[in-house]
């Protein structure tokens, strides 16, 4: 275990944590408005395929991120149409969007690139090194020599915090998530706010998916979201619905995932499936030990209809 190993570990932790952070930050906003979007996985996989197709079509990774974000919004639109506008059950709608998103992206991918899955090589998002900051010992290169989407996560977390807790719009959004009937009585348009909050969640999940395809893998593969939508929802709970804590929770999960490199460097001879399962087990432990007392928005997951 050397200094260089530790630096590699931290770099991997941030790299694995960033897509989760983006998706979880968007989900924080929608959950604060009372909407739990289990269909986040559909937005992420849509963002990954959109990112890949966009980057290929426009020969630009940046455009890929844009197309990926749009695809993420598209999946969230389906979710919001049913779970918000129609007032259908959120868990069931979200499951449908996840299953449908995985199927749809698989079908489009196979139609475009063949069932065998030829290895795509995409224009990738280059790392942007921030001068001075990246030279900080130990953590500098991990935090400040990353793709541009990572910096988006750093900036969006405090921005969402400010929006939620220091602006009148944020107050309205939280009111909708805590007491929608009272919010309506106060003249707040409950469904419009929930709809927009859900689309915002889809937008960031789409960016997260594009990051996976363009900064992480440099290719698209079916099911490459690998359950990150679900993990992001757990990360929101871990972060107690506070965007800044959520960012740290995502990095914690990234570190748990990166432990496989760390422990292998230590020469620990364990089956790799144990390492793969470790982040989920740590998240369960964290949920049990630390978050048990945290309170979810009171109206979370409850469909709501305008009172007459």
């Amino acid at each position: 275990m050397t200094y260089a190993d530790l630096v590699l570990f931290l770099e991997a932790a941030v790299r694995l944590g960033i897509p989760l952070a983006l998706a979880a930050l968007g989900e924080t906003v929608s959950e604060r408005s009372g909407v739990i979007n289990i269909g986040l996985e559909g937005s992420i996989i849509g963002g990954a395929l959109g990112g890949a197709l966009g980057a290929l079509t426009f020969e630009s990774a940046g455009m890929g991120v844009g197309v990926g974000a749009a695809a993420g919004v598209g999946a969230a639109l389906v979710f919001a149409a049913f779970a918000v506008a129609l007032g259908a059950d959120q868990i069931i709608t979200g499951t449908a969007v996840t299953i449908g998103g995985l199927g749809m992206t698989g079908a489009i991918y196979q139609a475009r690139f063949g069932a065998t899955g030829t290895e795509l090589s995409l224009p990738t998002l280059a790392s942007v090194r921030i001068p001075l900051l990246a030279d900080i010992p130990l953590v500098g290169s991990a935090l400040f020599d990353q793709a541009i989407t990572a910096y988006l996560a750093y900036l969006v977390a405090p921005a969402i915090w400010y929006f939620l807790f220091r602006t009148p719009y944020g107050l309205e959004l939280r009111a909708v998530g805590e007491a929608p009937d009272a919010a309506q009585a106060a003249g707040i348009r409950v469904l419009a706010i929930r709809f927009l909050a859900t689309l915002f969640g889809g937008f960031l999940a789409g960016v997260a998916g594009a990051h996976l395809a363009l900064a992480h893998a440099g290719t698209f593969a079916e099911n490459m979201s690998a359950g990150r939508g679900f993990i992001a929802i757990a990360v929101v709970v871990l972060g107690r619905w506070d965007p800044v804590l959520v960012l740290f929770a995502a990095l914690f999960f990234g570190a748990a995932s990166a432990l496989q490199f760390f422990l292998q460097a230590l020469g620990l001879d364990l089956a790799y499936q144990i390492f793969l399962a470790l982040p989920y087990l740590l998240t369960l432990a964290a949920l049990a030990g630390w978050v048990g007392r945290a309170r979810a928005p009171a109206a979370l997951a409850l469909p709501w209809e305008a009172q007459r």
Partner: protein
Amino acid sequence: MADVPAHAIQRRRLLDAMLTGLGAVALTAVVGAVLLMVGGHDPWMAATAMIRGSFGSGRTFVSITLVRSIPLILTGLAVAFAFRAGVWNIGAEGQLYAGAVAAVWMGLAGSGLPAWLLLPLVVLSALVAGAAWALVPTLMRLKLGVGEVITTILMNFVGIYVAGYMVHGPLQEARGVFPQTDPIAEAARLPMLLPGTRLHWGFGIAVLLVFALTVILRYSRFGFQLRAVGASPEAAAVSGRIDTGRVLLVSFLGSGAIAGLAGGVEVSGLTHALYEDLSPGWGYTAIAVALLAGLNPVGVVITGILFGALQAGAGAMQRDAGIPAAWVGVVEALVILAVLAIDKVRKMGAIVREDAG
């Protein structure tokens, strides 16, 4: 309106569920055809290939469609049972893997035992392992108030990796070549239900379970308590006669046991060994199966066979018509959304009628 529990609207009588189901299937066919056309495929070719591959002949139906429907019916029952109690068990996938691992372990370790002893042991270990896999999320909900949606999903991933670890490590075949176990003992295998076909006794077990669950839900004291807790946990608790915690505990663990059984039955009846990717996501499809059946056990058999046909037909569709099998996921999603939309329309119809009267 807002305080009606979400699942109350999805619980329906069988006839009602079947009408909604038929409407949802019709709606799915229309929307699915449009999507296929947009995707550049011929929906008619897709449909004919699909029907040929699932209902084409008696043999196809029994040996492919019905066999594929067995894990879907069992996990569908697991989900329906939990949802009826208001338990959001999204963890059938992980519980299924736990059951499969335990059943294979028992089937390997118990070789030498007679079938009358080993077969019940295999089934029992699958039930226990499934329930055990549900235990952590159950305790986290009951003791710590952590919602089961997230915890059951997290346990799914752990379950899949544990199964992967087993077939690469302790339970890997003696040759050590492929990530799979050795075949389980003959005495640990479920016998065939219809000689000359591939339909094994798992189908019989599923049908027996449907009867058992129907009787429990409809006629037993516990079934009444479970339905009461599902309709409104607060009201059930306030009534003072129902131990809500106990009802949730039993229904959650029972659901896990049934999902575990699905895994055990699959390895004992069909594959006779464990390997990675045993399940193509049955535990998630089960949610569509249960929902389309209106959470009604008898209905789950019908929708389970329908989804079994869909998965059997998808293979034929890819083979004969060159249409990616991944479209099945889209169709499953459309079915769920169609049920939600029809529910909504019917509810609005009821409100309009109320206002008019």
